[in-house]
């Protein structure tokens, strides 16, 4: 199983409510995935600032004095702790330096995602507990995606939870299972991608990152995925400005979408969408198999 939700706001007045709306959607999908849960929230970027979300199994020890130690090492930073995660803000032109520095200062810290706008929080446990640990309800943003996991292909761990982020401001959630992920992972490793887990969904995320790095936009990368990925999938993908949906040609994994003048929403089931504003008046449809859907704040504007 697994549950997926996604929300892309067209109406800016809804942005303060993004975390609240996504939390309700995610919690409704608890019975599709009670193992672990995760959420990626795209906030409004601040010029010149990069955000890195990190996770630690021992946050007390790892996050203490981190701000001071980063500054002492020549990288001024703001560290905001959120339970087992922390969001580190640094100057955007220093983003290349932080990974090596963290490996040296805090080897047990894992990077969950990085970019101008994305923050990623994921943990083992019931979706309702995960949402409250990170205070997701209070978070605002322009778009976000979430996942409730019932593991099939790899272990129930924090790093095995979704979303997977393999490129700046990119992330992916997946319902299904891929059958050619080992082969594809080997190819991607040869082309320079690195992997944190044995998870099949991380391979899908890395594939899209590699395709976009070669110059494709999200829509083109998703179209390529139809030829190159074998298995069952419904993907919801986030980028800095956009939000995409793709189902495999067999389309066993459920998917419902709703669109109004104010938002585009995705849910594994209609149940996940019933608390959205004016859902009764929304256009509700099932995305077609093997068809790429994507929305972009910049292209829409």
């Amino acid at each position, binding site marked *: 199983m697994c549950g997926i939700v996604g929300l892309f706001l067209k109406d800016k007045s809804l942005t303060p409510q993004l975390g609240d709306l996504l939390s309700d959607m995610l919690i409704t999908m608890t019975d599709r995935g009670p193992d672990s849960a995760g959420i990626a929230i795209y906030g409004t970027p601040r010029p010149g600032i990069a955000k890195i979300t990190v996770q630690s199994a021992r946050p007390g020890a790892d996050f203490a004095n981190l701000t001071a130690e980063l500054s002492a090492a020549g990288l001024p930073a703001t560290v905001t702790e959120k339970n087992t995660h922390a969001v580190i803000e640094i100057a955007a032109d220093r983003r290349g330096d932080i990974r090596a520095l963290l490996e040296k200062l805090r080897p047990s810290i894992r990077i969950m995602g990085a970019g101008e706008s994305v923050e990623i929080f994921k943990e083992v446990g019931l979706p309702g507990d995960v949402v409250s640990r990170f205070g997701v309800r209070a978070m605002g943003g322009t778009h976000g995606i979430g996942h409730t996991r019932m593991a099939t292909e790899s272990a129930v761990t924090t790093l095995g939870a979704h979303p997977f982020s393999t490129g700046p401001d990119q992330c992916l959630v997946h319902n299904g299972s891929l059958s050619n992920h080992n082969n594809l992972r080997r190819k991607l490793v040869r082309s320079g991608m690195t992997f944190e887990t044995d998870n099949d969904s991380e391979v899908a995320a890395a594939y899209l990152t590699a395709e976009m790095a070669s110059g494709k936009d999200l829509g083109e990368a998703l179209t390529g995925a139809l030829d190159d990925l074998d298995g069952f999938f419904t993907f919801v993908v986030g980028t800095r400005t956009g939000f995409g949906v793709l189902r495999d*040609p067999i*389309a*066993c994994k*459920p998917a*419902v979408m709703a669109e109004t003048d104010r938002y585009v929403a995705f849910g594994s*089931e*209609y*149940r*996940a*969408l*019933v608390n959205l504003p004016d859902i009764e008046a929304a256009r*509700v*449809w*099932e995305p*077609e*198999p093997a068809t790429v859907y994507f929305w972009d704040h910049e292209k829409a504007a």
Partner: protein
Amino acid sequence: MPVFDLSATPLRALNSALHGLEQGTNDTRFEVVNPRGHHAVAVGIDSPVSVEVHGSVGYYCAGMNDGATVTVHGSAGPGVAENMMSGTVIVEGDASQYAGATGRGGLLVIKGNAASRCGISMKGIDIVVHGSIGHMSAFMGQSGHLVVCGDAGEALGDSLYEAKLFVRGSVKSLGADCIEKPMKPKHLEKLARLLEKAGVTGVQPEEFRRYGSARKLYNFHIDNADAY
């Protein structure tokens, strides 16, 4: 007339009330409000009652129905009217995957579109879709009728047995062993009756094409009979 508000009442209360009906009961009309995508709404009814569901439902609505008339004033999730035995199920909106799967009897009417695998393994049910249907519909259909006023997706009627398929629009592709067959007067008569029962107007039986099994697969060959 009993009314169940599923935003306030557990689903089990509705289904228990429907299952507990005595023969000759005066409660023959039920209303369900705020279904909010709940799964298994009005499943397993075996009394000739009517149930009006106001809103959209999740998985398996009206599954195993035996004699009731269930109307969904909204859209239905996967497996609506799955394994229906008899009665009528009407979906005013769209239906998700495998609508009417394995149905043994009764009539399923979908006024919008149906997604993939509509009528998969149908065994006697009649399904009338006012709109279009998705891929792999009527896969291994054994008997009954699937009537589609719009178009059909890929691999229609793959590995079909004796179910009869009627499509008014285009068929993206036919599945293994499914072929177009001549429309005979008896088919036109049957189709006219089904269209009328399903409330389809402004559409003539002559506008449809008929598809069925070529009976050429392994399981139809007499030399293989002892393999089963």
